[in-house]
C-alpha cells in the first residue's frame, strides 16, 4: 500500500518534475523543500494560535467580567446606601415637613442643615455630580446643582412611591446638561408612612467609563455596560454609548454578566475579527516569507540554471557548426570543464573516425575501381583487338568484293562500336566518340530490326572535343532501346541533348522510347544494368552530386558528369 502511494507520488511529482527544464526543476524543488513547508507550518500555526487565543479570550472575559460586575455592584451599593441613610434621617424628614411653616431664620437653618447633610454625605464621594432634595410642597434643596425639574407631576426622575432606591440611566432634567447619569431616587417618608419628599442623586458615568476603559487589554476586547433596555450607557468605545446593544454573538466572543444591586449588565466581548487578526498577521508573515523564498528560488534557479545551461548551450552551439573549426575552450575547474573536455575528446575522436572512415571508403573505392579495371582489362585481354579488327577488315572487303554494301556497312559500324568499347588504357573519350559509339549501336540495331529506331542529337559542335568518361551515354541508350525493341513493334524514337554548364555536362534523353522505358520501371523487372553501371561509375568517380536520374514526372533521363580536364595524364578529378 505504502509503495503504491509512494509510486503515485512519484508518478505525480517526481516523474513530472524530471520532464521539466532544469530551471523549472530547481524552482519546484525549492518550493517543495522550503516554501511549501513554510506555508504549511504557518497555516497550522495560525489556526492553532486562533484556537488558543479564542480559549484564552473566553477565560479572560469571564474573569474580567466577574471582577467588573463585583466592583460596580459594590460601587452602586455604597451610593445607594448613602441615599438610604439620608432618606431615613429623621432630622431631614422633619426639616422637609416643617420648612414651609417656619420663619426666615429657621428656613435658613433648614436650608443650611440639608445642604450640609447632602454635602457631607455626597460631597466626598466625587462620583455624585449633583443631588437634590425636594419636598412635596415644592421646596428645593440641591447640592451643588439640581437634578430634576422640581415637579412631582411632570418629572420622570421623581417618585413618591420609591420606598427603596430606584435606579435609572438618563439625563438630568436640566436643559443645559444633556449628558446621561445614573439617577438614584428614593422617597422620604415620615414616621406615619407619609411621603414628605424625594431625594435624587445623579452619579457621574465617569466611573463606569473608567472601568470600561481600564479593562481593555491588548486583546482589544470591548467592555460595555447596558441598562435594562439594552441601551449602552458606558463603553470602552465611546462611539457606542447611547446605541442599542445588538449582541451579535456570531461575530464575537462575548460574556454578559448581570450586575447585582443594579439593573445593569456588563458585556465584555472580543470581536472575532480581532482574534482572526492575529492569525492573519501570523499567516501574513508566513506568506511574506514564502513569497520572499519564492523570489529567492526564482533568482537561485536563474543563476543555477545559467551556470548549468551556459556551458551546455556553448556545447550546443559548437555542435551545430557544420565543421569543427576549433574545440570548445574552457579554463574552469568544475564538472562542466570535465564535460567540455570529454566533448572535445569526443569531437577529436569523431573527426579522427570520420577521417579514417573517409580513407577507408576511399580505399574501398580505389579497390573497387582497380577490380573493375582488372575485370575490364581481363575482358579486353580475352579479346585480341588486332585479330578482331583484321577479321572484321576481311569481312568488310569480302562484302565489297561481293558487292554487298550492307555487310560492309554493318562490319564497319561494328568495328567502330567495338573500338570504343574495348579501347585499352583510355578511360575518357570525346563527346564525338561517345556519340559515334551510340550511333553505331543504333545503326547496327536498325540493321537488325529494320530501321525502327530513330534518334536525334542536340549537341553543339563546339563540344565535340570535350572529354567525358567513357561509356557514359551508350549503356543507357542500350538499356532503353533494348526494352523498347522487346515490347514495341512500331518505331522507336529517342532524343539526346548534351549541354555544358559550368564545367558540368548534362545529358538529357527524351522521347517515346524513354517515356515507355520509365513507364515500365515500376511494373516489371527491367534490365537496367547499363544505367546502374553508369550511375555507379559516375558516383564513384565524382561523388553523389553526379549520376543518372530517371525522372518519371518529366519523362526524361538525365545524366550529369563533370567535364574532364586533361592534366597530362589520365587521372580522375577529385570532387568533394
Amino acid at each position: 500500500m505504502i509503495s503504491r502511494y509512494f509510486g503515485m507520488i512519484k508518478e505525480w511529482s517526481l516523474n513530472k518534475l524530471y520532464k521539466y527544464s532544469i530551471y523549472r526543476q530547481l524552482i519546484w524543488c525549492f518550493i517543495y523543500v522550503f516554501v511549501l513547508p513554510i506555508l504549511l507550518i504557518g497555516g497550522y500555526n495560525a489556526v492553532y494560535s486562533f484556537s488558543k487565543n479564542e480559549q484564552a479570550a473566553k477565560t479572560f472575559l469571564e474573569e474580567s467580567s466577574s471582577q467588573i460586575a463585583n466592583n460596580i455592584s459594590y460601587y452602586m451599593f455604597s451610593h445607594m446606601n448613602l441615599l438610604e441613610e439620608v432618606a431615613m434621617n429623621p432630622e431631614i424628614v422633619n426639616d422637609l415637613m416643617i420648612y414651609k411653616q417656619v420663619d426666615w431664620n429657621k428656613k435658613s437653618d433648614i436650608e443650611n442643615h440639608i445642604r450640609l447633610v447632602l454635602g457631607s454625605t455626597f460631597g466626598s464621594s466625587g462620583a455624585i455630580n449633583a443631588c437634590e432634595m425636594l419636598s412635596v410642597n415644592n421646596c428645593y434643596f440641591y447640592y451643588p446643582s439640581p437634578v430634576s425639574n422640581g415637579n412631582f407631576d411632570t418629572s420622570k426622575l421623581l417618585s413618591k412611591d420609591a420606598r427603596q432606591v430606584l435606579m435609572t440611566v438618563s439625563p438630568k432634567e436640566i436643559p443645559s446638561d444633556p449628558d446621561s447619569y445614573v439617577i438614584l431616587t428614593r422617597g422620604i417618608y415620615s414616621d406615619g408612612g407619609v411621603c414628605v419628599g424625594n431625594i435624587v442623586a445623579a452619579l457621574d458615568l465617569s466611573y463606569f467609563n473608567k472601568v470600561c476603559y481600564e479593562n481593555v487589554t491588548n486583546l482589544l476586547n470591548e467592555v460595555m455596560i447596558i441598562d435594562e433596555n439594552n441601551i449602552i450607557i458606558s463603553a470602552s468605545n465611546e462611539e457606542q454609548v447611547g446605541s442599542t446593544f445588538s449582541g451579535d454573538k456570531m461575530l464575537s466572543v462575548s460574556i454578559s454578566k448581570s450586575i447585582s444591586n443594579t439593573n445593569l449588565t456588563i458585556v465584555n466581548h472580543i470581536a472575532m475579527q480581532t482574534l482572526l487578526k492575529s492569525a492573519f498577521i501570523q499567516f501574513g508573515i508566513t506568506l511574506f516569507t514564502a513569497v520572499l523564498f519564492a523570489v529567492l528560488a526564482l533568482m537561485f534557479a536563474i543563476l543555477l540554471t545559467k551556470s548549468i545551461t551556459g556551458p551546455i548551450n556553448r556545447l550546443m552551439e559548437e555542435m551545430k557548426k557544420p565543421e569543427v573549426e576549433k574545440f570548445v575552450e574552457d579554463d574552469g575547474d568544475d564538472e562542466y570543464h570535465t564535460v567540455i573536455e570529454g566533448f572535445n575528446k569526443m569531437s577529436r575522436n569523431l573527426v579522427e573516425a570520420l577521417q579514417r572512415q573517409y580513407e577507408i571508403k576511399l580505399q574501398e573505392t580505389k579497390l573497387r575501381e582497380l577490380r573493375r579495371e582488372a575485370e575490364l582489362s581481363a575482358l579486353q585481354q580475352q579479346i585480341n583487338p588486332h585479330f578482331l579488327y583484321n577479321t572484321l577488315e576481311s569481312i568488310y572487303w569480302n562484302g565489297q568484293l561481293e558487292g554487298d554494301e550492307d555487310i560492309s556497312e554493318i562490319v564497319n559500324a561494328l568495328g567502330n562500336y567495338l573500338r570504343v568499347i574495348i579501347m585499352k588504357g583510355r578511360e575518357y573519350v570525346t563527346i564525338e566518340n561517345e556519340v559515334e559509339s551510340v550511333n553505331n549501336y543504333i545503326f547496327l540495331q536498325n540493321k537488325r530490326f529494320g530501321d525502327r529506331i530513330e534518334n536525334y542529337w542536340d549537341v553543339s559542335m563546339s563540344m565535340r572535343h570535350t572529354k567525358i568518361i567513357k561509356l557514359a551515354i551508350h549503356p543507357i541508350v542500350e538499356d532503353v532501346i533494348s526494352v523498347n525493341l522487346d515490347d514495341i513493334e512500331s518505331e522507336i524514337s529517342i532524343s539526346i541533348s548534351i549541354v555544358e554548364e559550368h564545367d558540368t555536362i548534362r545529358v538529357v534523353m527524351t522521347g517515346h522510347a524513354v517515356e515507355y522505358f520509365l513507364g515500365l520501371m515500376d511494373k516489371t523487372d527491367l534490365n537496367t544494368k547499363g544505367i546502374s553501371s553508369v550511375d555507379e561509375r559516375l558516383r564513384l568517380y565524382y561523388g553523389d552530386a553526379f549520376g543518372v536520374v530517371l525522372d518519371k514526372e518529366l519523362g526524361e533521363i538525365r545524366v550529369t558528369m563533370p567535364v574532364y580536364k586533361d592534366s597530362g595524364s589520365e587521372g580522375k578529378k577529385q570532387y568533394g
Partner: protein
Amino acid sequence: MRRSKLLIGIIICMMILSSCTRIDSNSKATEDVADTGEKAITIAFAHKSLNSYFYTILNESVKKAVEERGWVFESSVADYDPMRQNQQIVNFIKQKPDAIITTAIDSISIEEVIRRGNEAGIPMCAIDTNAVGGKLAIDVSFDNYKAGQMAAEAIVEQLIEKYGNARGTVFNAYGELTSNAWRLRKEGFEAVISQYPDINYLPRSTEGKPELVKEELLKAFEEGIQIDAVHCSSEHPGRGLVEALQESDHWYPNWEEGHIILVTIDAEPYFVDLINKGYADSAVAQDVISYGNITVDLLANYVLAGKEIPEGEYFYGDTYWQVCDISITDNQAKVTIPPYIINTDNSNDIRHSSYIAEKVWGFQYNK
C-alpha cells in the same frame, strides 16, 4: 562565502520567526497608552457659602466656565467661616492649581493666604467680595454704589410718573454696614435720594434679615406713614418687604390703586417674576453668572497665557450689559461688573442671569 552564510542565516531566522510568531495576550493595552505628560489646567474655587441662591449660582457659574474649557474644577465651601476658608485656600495652594478663585468671607484676614498664593506663584483671583492686601491677578466685583444709585433713580422716575415731580416717602431697608456691598449700595442710593428734598426718606437698618425688614416696614405702616416706595439693598432680605406688603394689604400690581413702588437690587428669578406680574417695578441686576465667566475668560486669555490684561473697556458679548470696565493697578486687574435695570421692558431677555439660572440651568428658587 560570508555573504552566502549571512543570507542563509537571515532566511533561517525568518523561517523560525514566521513559524513561531504568536501574539501575547497577557499584557495590558494600557501599557501602550502613551503618557502625554500634559496636566489638565486646574482651577480651585474657595467659596464662602452656598447658603443663598446668589452664591449657589455663583458657584455654578465658575464651575461651568471652568469645565466648558475642559479644565478641572476643584471647590470648597467655608460656610462663612473665615478661618476655615483660609485653611481651604492653604490646602489648595499645596495642590498647586493653576489658579485660585475665592469669594472672601473676611476681606482682611484672607490677606495672609493671598500672599502665600502669590509666593507659590499661583494667580489669586477674588470675585464678588475683594481682599485687602496681597496681590490679586483678577478682582471681579459689582459696582454696588452705582447699583444703589440706579435703584434710587428708578424710584425717583416712578415717583415723578406718579406725582409729576419727585416727591413722596421712600422706605429703604438697608443691610449691615459692616458689609462693604450693602454700605456702598446704601451710599449710592442716598446720594441720589438726597438730591430730591421733597422726598421723605425713611432708612431702616435691618441687618440683611428678611424678618427685620418685614418688621420695620410693618411698623412704619402701623405708624400710619404713607409710603410710596420701598427698597431693599438685597433680595434675600427683600422677601421681608413682600410679606409686609402682602400682610398690610398693600400688595397691588402697578396698574391698581394702592400699588407701592418696589425696587430691589440683585434681580433674582423671584423678583423678576414679580416684575412680570406687576407687583415689583424694577430690579437692579447683578449679573452673577458673568462673574465666573469673565474671571475664567481673563485667566485663559491673559493670565495663564502669560499676557497682560488690557486696561479700559472690556467687551463681553454674551451679556446684557455688553461692556465692563477694567482698571489696572500694580498689575492687578480690577473688573467692575456694571449694574443694569430690569423692568417690564426687558424682563424676558434670555441674557439675564435669572433666566439662565432658572430656565437653562434648572435652579429652582425657593419663594
